[in-house]
């Protein structure tokens, strides 16, 4: 129990704040960690880490209803009971399930008088273990319009933990999803630290408060990184003040650096490209390491 690895989840109230670039840089700096991409909706970490996949698995989660037209007598019970409006009556009076609406609740299956509805396992995507220049990586590709990204996030996180144990690593860095909904909750449950990446914008303040309260709600230590801090010094100051009040330590202030996009295009992490903001991330890493 005492050698449980440290688990830093990088999250942000909204996307596009630089979460992925920062996670990749931290992983590079640590030189000795497991990385996981839990932002399964927009899995971009692979673009910087160039993984070579060594294992690939299908990810099934939940079920989907499918009406067997041979057995269906068209009574309409299923349509009446489905609360997700997933059952449609077609022009030729046939009933069918609209897959992107079905939540797999099983109500129609259970109450179809003819037992005409099959309940199939739902393929939601695939997940991979890969080798990268910064260490092992666990990541996934969520199927389009697939539900249950929260479950896939939990799976990736658990696989990352197993891998850390196997390889004897005591640090896991997770590129988390944005927001405060189910994928985020799944990605931070059981983590040791959360690093909230924010930007000095009015909306950034608003988002930060919500994300930090979420971390507090789950009793996980929150840190704050202010990306592009020099874009609006006034708002940056406000963020520092609010972070203080919310008991979240500001560990990093990263300058606005146009070259970040260039290093992204080259498929490099910020710290590998010798650009001005690299130093800010190195300073942040030093602070995170000691804490």
């Amino acid at each position: 129990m005492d050698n449980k690895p440290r688990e830093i989840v990088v999250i942000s109230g909204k996307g596009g704040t630089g979460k992925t670039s920062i996670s990749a840089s931290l992983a590079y700096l640590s030189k000795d960690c497991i990385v996981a991409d839990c932002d399964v909706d927009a899995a971009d970490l692979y673009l910087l880490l160039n993984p070579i996949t060594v294992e690939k698995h299908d990810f099934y989660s939940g079920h989907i209803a499918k009406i067997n037209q041979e057995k269906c007598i068209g009574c309409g019970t299923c349509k009446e009971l489905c609360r997700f409006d997933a059952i449609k009556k077609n022009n030729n009076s046939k009933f069918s399930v609209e897959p992107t609406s079905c939540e797999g609740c099983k109500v129609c299956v259970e109450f179809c008088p003819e037992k005409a509805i099959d309940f199939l396992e739902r393929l939601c995507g695939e997940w991979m273990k890969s080798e990268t220049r910064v260490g092992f990586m666990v990541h996934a590709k969520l199927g389009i319009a697939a539900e249950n990204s929260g479950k896939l996030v939990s799976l990736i996180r658990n696989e990352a933990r197993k891998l850390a144990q196997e390889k004897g690593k005591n640090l896991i860095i997770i590129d988390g999803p944005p927001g405060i909904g189910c994928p985020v909750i799944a990605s931070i449950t059981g983590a040791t630290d959360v690093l909230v990446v924010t930007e000095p914008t009015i909306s950034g303040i608003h988002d930060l408060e919500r994300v930090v309260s979420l971390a507090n709600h789950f009793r996980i230590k929150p840190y704050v990184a202010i990306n592009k801090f020099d874009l609006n010094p006034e708002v940056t100051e406000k963020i520092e003040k609010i972070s203080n009040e919310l008991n979240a330590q500001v560990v990093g202030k990263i300058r606005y650096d146009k070259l970040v996009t260039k290093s992204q295009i080259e498929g490099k992490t910020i710290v590998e490209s010798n650009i001005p903001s690299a130093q800010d991330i190195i300073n942040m890493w030093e602070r995170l390491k000691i804490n």
Partner: protein
Amino acid sequence: MTIAIASGKGGTGKTTIATNLAIVASEKYDSVTLLDCDVEEPNSHIFINGKKIKEEVVNVRIPEVDESLCTECGACSNFCQYNAIVSLKGKPVVFKEMCHSCGGCTLVCQPKAIHEVDHRIGLINFYKSGKINLIEGLLDIGSPLSPPLIGAVKGYESKDTLNIIDAPPGTSCPVIEAIRDADYLILVTEPTPFGLNDLILAVEVSRKLNKKFSVAINRVGSGDDRVHKYCKKENIPIILEIPDDRRIAELYSNGKIILENLPEYKKCFEEVLEKIGTVIQNGQ
């Protein structure tokens, strides 16, 4: 008519485009409804600066067990696909955060020991600013289920005016819920590798839902031309290009609207509305 503004990932400028479009449209139409369906982090109100006129609590229905009628048969917990009702030493216990409100447990309980009660998941805020009605969903902290709240916000879509939906980012359940019934989608992206990767996912979603769509590229000039090339190859119209202008980033950071401060951008938003109008009219 409903236009939804979506993107594979956040931070690409969805809110910027939705709010500016709403303002341009409000000059042209009698009224415009802007629905902020990014319920985890709704930001449109910061830019629209309207007067809040009312709020409404959004509830979902979750089961409650009447212990005096329960025979501890376990049918409810066996049925629930989301482990939201679990038998602990025979007694059913409800985990509200996990409940999808499907109603199944109530139906399977023979002694009718289950009835449904309201459980709050968030709020809808109503703002008014000139001719713009802003309707914003705000998910409660710790509540994981955004689709029902998004559905409730969409319930205020107006039948006879223009609706603009600010969709949540991503490609899974919340986005699908937000854009499902839209007449037209604008997919917002950036000219970078991340931007392209996420745009491709958003395009797949739009195609899967059989939607008419086009692309808006934000911060043009900050990266490379791979997004342009992709759109050309896939025959996807680019409806709007916003240059990489530090003034825009600064306005955004102060919660200010582009149009009101950089009027030179007004024309391109007007063109967007016009183009969409024609596309929808011609049914193509």
